[in-house]
């Protein structure tokens, strides 16, 4: 005979037990459950009907759109190149595509632990961003030149996002370190700068960089508008990120630094090998949040005349022919945003798991 008491409770029928306990515990609860799921199914059906059953799929059939009761995906079929590439010359879209691939590859490779050394990351970024810039600009490698005001669409969004994060992250770390400096001139100066920038709306900062700076500074200091905007955006990012890092620094006990000193390590060795790795772990959730928000905020550059993905989406239904189908275009662009941001946050979850394993 087996000892029944020692056996774990059976898991068979757990789902039905769960339902009974949480969804059908009483008559009113059962009614609420049924009504709720009926409503949910109905909404799902409406969405499916609009997006799939009643939809028109290709550009050739665009004439059916006005009479169809579903979505008119023809607009995407006809205009996706405008959405993805903006004002970039039509014949050269292959360059913009390759540039996108270069940037996405650079970001993906930087996320792999194998590349996490200063030398490898630096090399990767120089190659990745160099490839992007040369492909997009073209001039220096003998291709037809495309000036930055013609860049647009997804490749511009990706470029803005990755440059802002790439420049802003070390800048944020530098600001966080400077804020902890023992020299009051530096720590106060940096605190004032951080609080000043954080008290301005992003729009104001970007507008200043795009419009006001050229008025104030002599010509030779202007640089390209896109670089002014990226630097300003990165500064904005860095000021917030500095505060995220600051929280991470505050979580490190004094004893960690002392243990390093007692072992004879120097300040920069302690910082690089003992303190910063822990700061990064502690500030990971906040950092992921900043990165995700920044991806979405790149859309704000529309205001100062950049043709990023949302602006080119607006243009895609801007002609009379496609004007009624803006919902389809926004769904498409929303999907693109969702793919990138969802991947970023999933990667963040992976990092959090990986880091917590290292701690206990």
């Amino acid at each position, binding site marked *: 005979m087996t000892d029944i008491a020692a056996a774990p409770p059976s898991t068979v029928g757990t789902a039905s037990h769960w339902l009974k306990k949480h969804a059908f515990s009483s008559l009113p609860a059962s009614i609420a459950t049924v009504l709720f799921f009926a409503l949910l199914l109905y909404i799902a059906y409406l969405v499916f009907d609009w997006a799939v059953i009643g939809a028109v799929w290709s550009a050739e059939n665009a004439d059916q759109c006005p009479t169809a009761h579903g979505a008119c995906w023809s607009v995407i079929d006809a205009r996706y190149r405008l959405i993805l590439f903006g004002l970039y010359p039509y014949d050269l879209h292959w360059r913009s595509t390759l540039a996108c691939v270069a940037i996405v590859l650079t970001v993906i490779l930087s996320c792999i632990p194998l590349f996490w050394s200063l030398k490898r990351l630096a090399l990767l970024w120089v190659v990745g961003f160099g490839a992007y810039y040369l492909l997009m600009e073209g001039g220096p490698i003998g291709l037809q030149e495309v000036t930055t005001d013609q860049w647009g669409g997804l490749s511009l969004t990706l470029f803005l996002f990755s440059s802002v994060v790439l420049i802003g992250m070390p800048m944020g770390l530098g600001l966080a370190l400077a804020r902890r400096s023992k020299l009051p001139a530096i720590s106060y100066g940096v605190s004032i700068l951080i609080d000043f920038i954080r008290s301005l709306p992003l729009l104001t900062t970007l507008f200043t960089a795009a419009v006001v700076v050229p008025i104030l500074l002599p010509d030779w200091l202007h640089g390209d508008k896109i670089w002014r905007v990226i630097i300003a955006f990165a500064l904005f990012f860095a000021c917030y990120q500095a505060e995220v890092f600051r929280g991470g620094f505050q979580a490190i006990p004094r004893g960690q630094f002392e243990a390093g*000193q007692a072992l004879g*390590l120097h300040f920069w060795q302690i910082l690089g090998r003992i303190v910063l790795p822990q700061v990064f*772990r502690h500030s990971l959730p906040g950092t992921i949040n900043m990165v995700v928000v920044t991806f979405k905020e790149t859309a704000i550059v529309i205001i100062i005349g950049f043709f990023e993905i949302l602006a080119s989406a607006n243009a895609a239904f801007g002609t009379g022919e496609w004007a009624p189908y803006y919902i389809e275009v926004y769904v498409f662009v929303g999907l693109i945003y969702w793919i990138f941001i969802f991947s970023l946050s999933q990667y963040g979850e992976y990092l959090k798991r990986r880091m917590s394993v290292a701690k*206990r």
Partner: protein
Amino acid sequence: MPDPQANAVEIRNMHKYYGAFHALKNIELTVKSGERIVICGPSGSGKSTMIRCINRLEEHQAGTITVLGTELTDDVHNIDEIRREVGMVFQHFNLFPHMTVLENCTLAPMLVRKASQREAEAEAMGFLEKVKIPDQALKYPGQLSGGQQQRVAIARALCMRPEIMLFDEPTSALDPEMIAEVLDVMVNLAQEGMTMLCVTHEMGFARSVADRVIFMDQGEIVEEGPPGAFFDNPQNERTKLFLSQILGH
């Protein structure tokens, strides 16, 4: 280079202030090479501060501290030299939580002594065996008990092959059942002739291992002597009061 003829530690007329607070008053202390010193006293008496001055975790404001013939000044070169020869074990272990036990032990030898990874690892395994936890080498500190962590911390300090070891209340943060395993390691170290300065309330350890016991109160060295005389026949009233408090029950 350290002078083999020199005393391990010589503190002369040393004073330490925190702002207006006079934390250490006129400290005089000579520790010979191979000597084992236990420092005790009520909390706030300055005993931790004193040993933290020896490797410059705290700065003294007056007097001199000479370690193995090198005087501790603002000269970074001297500070580095002294820290290479002085190991320290902390009350709260201060292991690096993001590194394995082995990485904790090899970090400083590789960065400071420029040992190769292989050398450093072989040596670290030797010391981990000595503190009886070689099987935990690939775990992270958070996976170990307090007693194990403190033994790792001792091994980590030993990996730098120091001439002098400072212990700052090494058992105070431990659960009672783990104190013995740490004290065992310290006793073995003492028997091998390591120069040791231990701030501790473990009077049994002091009695069996120390060459000299020092009692501090209110920033001063009040009384010192061999453990027999110190425990059985204390001279100063403050020492008597302290001993009656900690040995009384």
